[in-house]
């Protein structure tokens, strides 16, 4: 063998060796997920919604949720993100005609179709512009603690960093489901346009500004409840010593309908202060309301009540405001409608959370009232107290128990109607149904996250 041939042989062996070794590193498969079991007792949840009632029956039930997150990562700049959900109530769940829901498999012998799609989107950094692109069914949250909107939606979101400024520009189409026999696809649509900026003033202070626009061309103002909405807002996150404070404000304007203009606002703040072995949490939220429900509208608009896409997890409530820890039975005394059907909301919440080795605990109190009273309606919604204690069985698995009780305000407890205190649509509609019992809840959770 000549020297040249030998060199060729070495190169060939080297190429083959590298060739067989590289494919193993070409794709990173990333799996994450969660499983939560929740046993619930109380007189409030009925398995699908809120159940305020006079002489409310107590009962117990159990439910579970699993989420599977698979990410196919080609490299640091390119990946496909998928996220699925599987829900079931122990014993199964049927609709009014006795048919099993498509997203429940708790019946005898299981075997129902339960896989729900949460996210399927491509996430890449453009090699030319350095812009991060997310295209597909993806989660999106507003910069106002998710009060306006937190949802999985189809869209395209672009994010570019110009240190210390980060700017996002997004387009989401959340309604284009008109039957083909009524209108062609792309005609009766609802779109969200997002322009969101965050500026890091120092490493401890970030300020943000945003503009959201929703153009509802579906021909219906039932969901969302407006035709055209502009929302401008400011938000910040400030770390000062042991405290982190996040204030926010947003103003909405636009058209509810051809005869009704919109002018409304949201304001609030959350705070977390390290004290002793844990932290004090405090939060306040104000959503402007409308005092008559006619003419021009002054009530802050959320995008949807059903499906529920509005949150305020910083409240740390279980019943007064939808809980951030809830799974399938995720609702509140307001039926997830923080706007109380246009009356607006004023809420104040505080609590303490801490850990001791593998034990974690928290206790909270909160009060909520409507921002506006319509007629004789009383503004008071109620006061909640709750507490939770848990233990970390493993790094990834915890067990916990929680209890919550709401002292209902007259707005929810008393009968509704002309000259009466109850809030129409929430309070008892008849004298026979009044007064609603105070709701309470106990739960036991097993939570595994990986």
């Amino acid at each position, binding site marked *: 063998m000549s020297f040249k041939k030998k060199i060729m042989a070495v190169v060939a*062996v080297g190429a083959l*060796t590298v060739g067989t070794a590289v494919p193993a590193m070409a794709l990173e498969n990333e799996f994450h997920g969660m499983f939560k079991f929740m046993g619930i007792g109380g007189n409030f949840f009925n398995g699908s919604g809120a159940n305020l009632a006079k002489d409310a029956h107590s009962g117990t039930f159990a439910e579970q949720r699993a989420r599977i*997150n698979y990410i196919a990562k080609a490299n640091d700049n390119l990946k496909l993100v998928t*996220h699925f959900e599987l829900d079931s109530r122990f014993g199964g769940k049927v609709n009014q005609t006795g048919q099993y829901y498509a997203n429940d498999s708790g019946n005898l012998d299981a075997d129902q179709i339960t896989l729900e799609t949460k996210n399927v989107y491509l996430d890449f950094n453009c090699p030319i512009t350095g812009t991060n692109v997310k295209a597909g069914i993806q989660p999106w949250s507003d910069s106002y603690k998710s009060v306006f909107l*937190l949802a999985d939606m189809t869209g395209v979101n672009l994010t570019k960093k110009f240190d210390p400024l980060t700017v996002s520009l997004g387009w989401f189409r959340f309604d284009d489901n008109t039957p083909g026999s009524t209108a062609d696809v792309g005609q009766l649509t609802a779109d969200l346009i997002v322009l969101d900026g965050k500026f890091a003033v120092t490493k401890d202070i970030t300020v943000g500004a945003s503009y959201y626009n929703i153009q509802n061309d579906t021909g219906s103002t039932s969901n969302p409840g407006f035709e055209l909405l502009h929302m401008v807002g400011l938000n910040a996150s400030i770390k000062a010593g042991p405290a982190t404070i996040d204030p926010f404000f947003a103003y909405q304007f636009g058209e509810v309908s051809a005869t009704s203009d919109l002018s409304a606002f949201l304001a609030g703040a959350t705070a977390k202060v390290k004290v002793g072995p844990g932290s004090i949490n405090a939060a306040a939220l104000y959503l402007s309301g409308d005092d008559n429900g006619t003419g021009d509208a002054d009530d802050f608009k959320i995008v949807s009540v059903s499906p529920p896409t509005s*949150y305020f997890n910083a409240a740390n409530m279980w019943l007064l405001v939808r809980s951030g*820890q809830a799974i399938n039975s995720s609702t509140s005394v307001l039926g997830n409608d923080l706007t109380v059907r246009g009356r607006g909301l004023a809420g104040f919440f505080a609590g303490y959370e801490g850990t001791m080795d593998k034990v974690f605990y928290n206790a909270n109190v909160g009060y909520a009232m409507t921002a506006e009273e319509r007629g004789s309606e009383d503004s008071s919604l109620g006061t909640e107290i709750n507490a939770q204690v848990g233990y970390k069985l493993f*790094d*990834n698995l915890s067990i916990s128990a929680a209890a919550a009780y709401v002292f209902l305000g007259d707005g929810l407890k008393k009968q509704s109607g002309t000259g009466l205190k109850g809030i129409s649509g929430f309070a008892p509609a008849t004298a026979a149904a009044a007064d609603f019992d105070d709701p309470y809840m106990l739960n036991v959770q097993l939570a595994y996250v990986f």
Partner: protein
Amino acid sequence: MKKIAVLLCAAFMMSVTVPVFAAEMTKEEKDQCLLASKNCATEVDSIQKKIKKLNAEIKKGKKVYSAEEIKKLQEKLDEADKMLDNLLRP
């Protein structure tokens, strides 16, 4: 001499690729992957472990990483935090 050089070259190239597999265990060691689901070649980090490791690396600061690398680690931490929030939201 040339033959030896060729063989050494080939052996070296093999040696730099093979250790990943070879280091898993020797004949005398127990297979902890089969026995206790530990140290498996395909083991991946849980989301909590990933966050913990990123925090630990960021804490090492500029003694170990350049400003650009710290920024990249911070971005990965933010992304992992968001992923965890998304998994846990109602």
